[in-house]
């Protein structure tokens, strides 16, 4: 009977382990910070005529940040190119979003603009305007949804806007959690007391992943032994 129990549990635990492995290896956006989340259900456009500028403050840059993602409110092949300016705490950069049509140009719904690597973490203000001084307006995706909240304020031409501009910072292309476990644990430890670092969290994680199934199997086998079967 105990072998039967062991075999049954092994089947379920292996299926579980497969599911967990799938989650850990699933590629996700390589986010380094989210200044304001993208709209959830109701997108509110922020229209920038040539010369107009939308800014978002208190945007956290990390040494690993390479890309600023802004969402297009009207993704078509003819979206205008954006000029993105980042400044604050010793960092300054002015860059253009990728031109033409294709991934990250706005035509696919996102403007992924590469920025120079920051030397250290900094709180900055990110400003966006159309690259050309005349021509087409840029329509960016903002949100007035109650659930979309952030400490950053959005301004358009210096005036506070009720519509928050979705703005995310990335380190590059998508990657899985399993590809950078130490960084994941360091992030998790950022909120814990100083004496609980990433290594302690790794131990707790291992204890959960190995110890919980082991204790469960042991409990079942011991119970069967206590029952005399």
């Amino acid at each position, binding site marked *: *009977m105990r072998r*039967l*129990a062991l075999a*049954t*549990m092994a089947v*379920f*635990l292996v*299926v*579980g*382990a497969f*599911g*967990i492995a799938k*989650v*850990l290896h699933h590629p996700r956006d390589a*986010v*380094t*910070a*989210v200044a*304001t*989340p993208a709209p959830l259900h109701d997108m509110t456009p922020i229209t920038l005529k040539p010369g107009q500028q939308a800014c978002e403050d208190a945007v*956290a*840059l*990390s040494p690993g940040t390479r890309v600023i993602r802004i969402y297009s409110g009207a993704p078509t092949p003819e979206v205008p190119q954006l000029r993105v300016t980042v400044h604050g705490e010793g960092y300054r950069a002015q860059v253009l979003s990728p031109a033409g049509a294709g991934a990250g140009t706005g035509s696919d719904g996102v403007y992924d603009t590469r920025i120079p690597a920051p030397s*250290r*973490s*900094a*709180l900055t203000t990110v400003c966006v305007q159309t690259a050309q001084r005349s021509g087409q307006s840029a329509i960016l995706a903002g949100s007035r949804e109650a*659930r979309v*909240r*952030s*400490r950053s304020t959005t301004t358009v031409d210096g005036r506070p806007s009720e519509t928050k501009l979705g703005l*995310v910072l990335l380190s590059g292309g998508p990657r899985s*959690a399993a590809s*950078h476990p130490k960084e994941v644990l*360091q992030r*998790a430890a*950022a*909120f*814990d*007391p100083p004496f*609980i670092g990433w290594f302690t*969290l790794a131990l*707790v*994680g291992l*204890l*959960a992943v190995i*110890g*919980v*199934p082991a*204790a*469960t*199997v042991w*409990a*079942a086998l*011991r*119970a*069967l032994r*206590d*029952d005399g*079967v």
Partner: protein
Amino acid sequence: MLSRNWRARASAFPRPLAALLAAATVLSIGWALFTPPLSGPDESGHAAYVQQLAQTGHGPHAGDTDGKPVSSEMEALIGWRNLDSVIGVATARPGWSAAERAAWERAVRDADRGDGTGPNPLAQNPPLYYGYDAIAYQVGRGWSLPTRLLLMRLANLPLLWIVIGCGWLAIGEVFRRAGVFARTVGTGAIALLPMVTFMSGVINPDIALTAVSTAAIALSLAAVRIGPRPATLLGLGVLAALAVLIHARGLALLPPIALVILMVLWRGRRDVSAGRLLGLGAGAVLLAAIGVLTAIAISNGHAGTTSFSGEVTGSSSSGLGDLSGLLDYVWQFYFSPLTGMAPPPADVVLGYRQIFVEQFLGGEFGSLEVHYADAVYRALQVAQGLGLIALVVVFARRWERVRAHAAQAVVLLGFVVSTLLLLHVAAWQDLAAPPHASLLAGRYLLPLVSVFAIALTAVVASVPPRAKVVLGSAVLASGAALSVAGLLLTVVRFDA
């Protein structure tokens, strides 16, 4: 001598229960460490309540007040570590960066800890759990707020152990000869139910209410077996008082506890003198009444009149006045609407699958934005459906045994009916009145987790031996796998 006694007691402690307690403890610590501060269900409001109570000796207020919902210290943490942004939004991330940490450290330097006087929407909650958690807050008084919040989460561990221990006892009361394995499976269904350990890893009174409710169910089952003893009857009175002092949903425990006391007194009328019975009954009622009146006084004092009883009279004037609407809503919660049935007046109304399967049996973490794959919930729904069918078959085939244990069956049914009735009435009243919010959540079913475990044990104990081993092992392994997966999904959601 003393150490020999202790050793004897330790060796008599059921080893499978010890293993399940250890597993649940690791999971609870994992949830406490890996869930960012204030990111659990309504956690900032609960934590703000504890902080206000610990700092000033008074709870926060609801409604129109001049203060702030959270203290300046907590406000700085929430703002600079991006903790408001992550609530319920899966694409948001907490602020991990060194720059945000530095900004928070600057902001928090002279920040007031005791100015979170309200408005706090949770001010209507009675103070018992918050007072309990305030002890952990005071222990960590000299440390930073995140450390105090972690200590407050870890203070839930004894409550988790009560849930699991009392679950073990409750199952043992119902199945005295079912064997250790069946009991282990039932208790494992509690200890490894992801929502149980998750809720014990965040600051929330639901785990305290679950502990008291599970203890009340275990004690009720014992009371109908052993008859009118002071410890059981007065104990039930104390548990009734504790339940309403933790949360207004604790009101659901009053009718079944009253029923149990009446049953016990009736069954003991031949063996115990009428005066003693009357004294015991009156004592239990008095204890419960003290609890209820204290809870009402404190709750209404902090949130205006009728706030505590709002759990039953609702936030609307129309709620209980529209009984056919309530019946229509309850029908549509469980089944497809019948012809002519009006849908509940809300854009999104959660039903059986969302509440019982997704939010209770499987679990949703963070602030309900961390999910398993839909296939997992589908599998759980099928398993739960099959389990319910099996339970009906077990009842039908073993009807004589069920009748022989009618008192225990009535006790369990009493807790289930009373809890579901209160939840549905409260939910309907929130739905019926503007802004027509659907406020029912799967974690509100946690006080019934021991009944769920008993039902599961009934099925496991009733099948042939080989099937029992396969079914029981499958339940335990699924619980372990789901718990670990839920924890890792949370890590990936917040930190990857």
